[in-house]
């Protein structure tokens, strides 16, 4: 029987490939999720009741159902309804984007609402439109306050992508699954997979502390 170190060494190429796939899904999904979250967050702070209703329905549906169900629904359910095939990667990215987007929407809403009325009034009294007030005065301040909460959500999303192994996407967890099913060395492989996630997430939270300090409001 190979030594533990040999097992891990042999597994590294495949695990690294899986890591790259995981990072790709995370980066793409979070970019979509930030855009979706910003739009939905703005809608939920809007004066228009219909926009608020749409945003709150979206947030309720996503937060009220498990991510795995959302993944299955988009990958297995929607193709039946739409009569078209959705590639696993596309389905996975859609599911994770929509999921993270709902939580990010709430982060934006809370951040926007944390900026006092005085800031809105000062900006509007200068003649800035509602949109410019939001974009130039409220969001720049709110976003800085949101950084720790964003990072928290990013970390959750990174770990959530492991659920995409359920639809056969060869991300980090699925790579581990493939290796273990071939060599039955569960201890070494799952330990290593865990360390990989840990490294990604620790690096991210260190980076975020740096960004927080860099953009702190003096």
């Amino acid at each position: 029987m190979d030594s533990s170190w040999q097992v891990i060494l042999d597994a590294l190429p495949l695990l690294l490939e899986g890591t790259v796939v995981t990072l790709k899904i995370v980066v793409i999904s979070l970019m979509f999720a930030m855009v979706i979250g910003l739009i939905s967050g703005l809608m939920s702070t809007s004066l228009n009741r219909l926009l608020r209703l749409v945003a709150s329905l979206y947030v309720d549906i996503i937060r009220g159902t498990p991510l795995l169900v959302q993944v299955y629904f988009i990958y297995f359910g929607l193709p039946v309804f739409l009569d078209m095939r959705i590639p696993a990667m596309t389905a996975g990215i859609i599911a994770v984007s929509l999921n993270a987007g709902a939580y990010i929407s709430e982060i934006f809403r809370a951040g926007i609402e944390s900026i006092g009325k005085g800031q809105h009034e000062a900006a509007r009294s200068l003649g800035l439109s509602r949109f410019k007030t939001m974009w130039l005065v409220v969001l720049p301040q709110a976003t800085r306050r949101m950084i720790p909460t964003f990072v928290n959500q990013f970390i959750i999303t990174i770990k959530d992508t492991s659920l995409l192994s359920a639809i056969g996407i060869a991300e980090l967890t699925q790579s581990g699954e493939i290796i273990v099913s071939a060599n039955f060395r569960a201890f070494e492989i799952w330990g290593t997979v865990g360390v990989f996630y840990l490294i990604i997430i620790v690096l991210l939270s260190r980076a975020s502390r740096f960004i927080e300090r860099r953009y702190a409001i003096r």
Partner: protein
Amino acid sequence: MITVENLRKQFGANEVLKDISTTIREQEVVCVIGPSGSGKSTFLRCLNLLEEVTSGKVIIGEVEVTSPKTNIDELRTNVGMVFQQFNLFPHLTVLENIMLAPKHIRKLSKTDNEKKALELLGKVGLSQKKDAYPEQLSGGQQQRVAIARALAMNPSVMLFDEPTSALDPEMVGEVLQVMKNLAHEGITMIVVTHEMGFAREVADRVIFMDGGYIVEEGTPEDLFQNTRHERTKAFLGKVL
């Protein structure tokens, strides 16, 4: 310059402004005094529609503020406002605070904008603070920057909502001095204030409000020395 006709403002069942009519001439400095809850801040905030008006008319220059057809953003560029809590933008430097509106509304070039901003900062005596952030300034300094920021759009009217009420006593003087200078330059000013000394010295006219009405108005001399109404007397008795 400014005409207010039968202005009423209700918050739910609470009628804060009951029937306000007055006219303010160009270059006039008007101080609005009165007990708290008398509606004086609400009156001021109705002039640039920070509060929606329940009924009545406000006309500034040629523009009927209260008409639904009025472009309110455009009107507001002509009406500067200074708040009790300063409300500087904390993520921007002093200079950026002043340059924000001209940059994004007037599309002023950076050079022109900065030149104007520095000139305004000089006027309020804070040139050396141009790169500071609001948090690094004292309350008095922040309020002077807020005045410069409001002036950056070249408004023809300036509204001051208790500009010295949130300041430590030793900083009140510097802000009032800046306002005095402005008054002498001939800008139309409406000042809601508790500073009776300022009202007496600088105002062309003083308005005393109580219970949502204008109870009495006149020159500082009329109001402070030849007070006609009992309510005004009672109020002045308490604050002077």
